[in-house]
């Protein structure tokens, strides 16, 4: 089976890099970008299976990025990364096509499960 391609989008570089490495250790094809523009470019050029998208980023709102990704390729599943307190925004994200959300700091096991489920969904769709 192909490794699940995961794109991490978060402006906290240390966090995104560390998490990406952890995912790679678990045999995910994980890549981290730190700017929304880079995320959109990456989605266009090298479409991932799952996107882990941070809500609050300078430059572009997470929801905005979500909409654009979904527009580019609706099959891509997006999991929103959120700090406590953004729960109301999560609702909006789901409305706009987000698959799920996970709160930071996150539990890696929970994340893996959500990524796999998202992948399954994607497979079933396509």
């Amino acid at each position, binding site marked *: 089976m192909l490794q699940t391609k995961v794109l991490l989008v978060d402006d906290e570089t*240390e966090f995104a890099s*560390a998490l990406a490495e*952890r995912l790679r250790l678990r045999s995910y094809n994980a890549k981290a970008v730190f700017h929304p523009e880079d995320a959109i470019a990456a989605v266009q050029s090298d479409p991932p299976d799952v996107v882990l998208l941070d809500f609050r980023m300078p430059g572009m709102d997470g929801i905005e990025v979500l909409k654009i990704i979904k527009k580019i390729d609706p099959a891509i599943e997006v999991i929103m990364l959120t700090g406590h307190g953004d729960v109301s925004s999560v609702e909006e994200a789901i409305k706009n096509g987000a698959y799920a959300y996970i709160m930071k*700091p996150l539990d890696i096991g929970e994340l893996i499960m959500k990524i796999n489920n998202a992948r399954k969904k994607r497979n079933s769709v396509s």
Partner: protein
Amino acid sequence: MRDKKMSTMKCWEIFQCNKQACPAYGSKDLKCWLFSGTHCREAIQGKFLEKMEMCLDCEVLIANRDSNAIKATLNVVNKQFKEFVRIIGERDNELECMSMELAISLSEVFEGLKKIASGDPEVRLDERSDIELISKLKHFVNITAQEIGGIVDQSHEFAIVLAELFDVLHKVSKGDLLTRVTGESQVELLESLKTVTNETIESISKEITKRERAETDLKKAYDKLEHRVEERTAELKLINEQLWHEIVQRKKVEEELREAELRYRTVADFTNDWEYWEAPEGKLRYVSPSCERITGYKAEQFIENPGLISEITLPEDNSIWKSHHHDALHSLGHRDIVFRIRRQDGQICWIEHVCQPVTDNKGTFLGVRASNRDISMRKRAEDALRKSEHLLLQAHKMEALGRMAAGVAHEINNPLAIINEKAGLMQDFLEMSGDFEQKREKFIGLIHGIFESVNRCRTITHRLLGFSRRIDVTFEVINLNDTIREVLAFIEKEILYRNIRLELHLREDLPKVFSDKGQLQQVFLNIVNNAVDAVEKGGFIEVQTDVKNEDFVTVLIKDNGPGIPQNILNHIFEPFYTTKEKGKGTGLGLSISYGIIQKLGGSILVQSEEQKGTSFIVEIPIKAMNG
């Protein structure tokens, strides 16, 4: 009665008279009754006929009634009768002549008198007459006629002169004083009358002239006098009016004084505050009744013992009272003071004491007039207010903190997430088998990364604690630029995530200010938060520090949000005024910020234009203000 026969008895024998002088005495022919002038009876003396009558009754006759005697007697009587007849005849002739002459004379006299009576005094009767009486009468008639003629003449003359006099006097009475009586008169009296009249007229005329002159003079004098009197009267009138006015004024003033006294007494005695008037030597001249309510001691007690005020002052506040009291009585500059007393019932009471020097209208120092107010309640209220202000400030701060909490949580969350992944990675590496040496480098790197994240968190938590810890107002020398940077650090993440562009123009040589850092941070945070709320996403905020003048510096916080409409602009500093929807914001922020800056001696100004943006300018004094 003689019984003896009286025959030819002699009378002197009968009577026994002895009157030898009597013609009958010793006569031979006794016929005493024929003798006249006998002395037998006094009554007979001189009266022959009567004698005869008496002799008829006399005893002598009776005694000598013989015929010779009777004859003799009759002869005598006859002679007598004849004599008588002759006499009578003579007498008759005489009488006839006389009466004829009388009649003629009387008729002459009658005629003459008639003539005289009719007014013609030209009567001259022939005065010759045998009868002396007639000639006398005629003479008298003539004289009378003469006299009357003279009188008539005289009276004519009198009449003429009187008429003249009357005329003249009449003229005089009509005012003609030049008229004089003229003519000459024979009559001395009339002459002198004329003279006197003329003299009288003369003198009257002179008198009148004198009088007229005097009158004129008098009139002149009178006019002058009247004029002067008028003047004086006018003067007096004026003075009188003035006096009257003065009296009215005085009465008014008196009335006003009475009223004022009443008013002031009423005011003084009913005043709520404990008022007194202390004379320069320390005696109390007036103490208002309220002192009993406030201190528990009666006014009289204070008056009796002026030191009572000092006695009831709490020992801790005694120095305040003493120095103020001394200054006041010596009319030195002094402040109003606040101190505590112990009431008669033991309770402690806060007194606010205000006093002024009292002087009379000559400037003499009369002492001090003081007003003492029981401000215990006010003090308590002030304390409560201060506490509540304090609490409000705290609440404001808490509100800001609350706002920041979300941001802070997010901020801390990120480092935590990092720690989580790095620790997780470390765990992964440890659980994976393999060369530990290789991983050693990575571990060191990861642990380092964790420490960095912890530091990040520390900075954030310290910042937050630093802000929340400041409860008391502490004045210190502050670098405003640093303070502003600290404040912006609180919300930098939020600014970042909202894509707000932040521009700082902080003047490098900004003078340091002496103020309270915590409160300034509170204010800046409030205003910057408002700016962030205003611009929402993609806006622009500028912060500028500058010097206004030698006393003030300014902090400008400008945004390009929608601006504040003019009608709202007037209200933004009002407490509880907010344009945010319910639940979002208390409306207290700006009002508290305004209050804080005011208390620090500065001010907040706002400029705004709809669609263009808003600028808040905070002016802060460089040096601390007093009080």
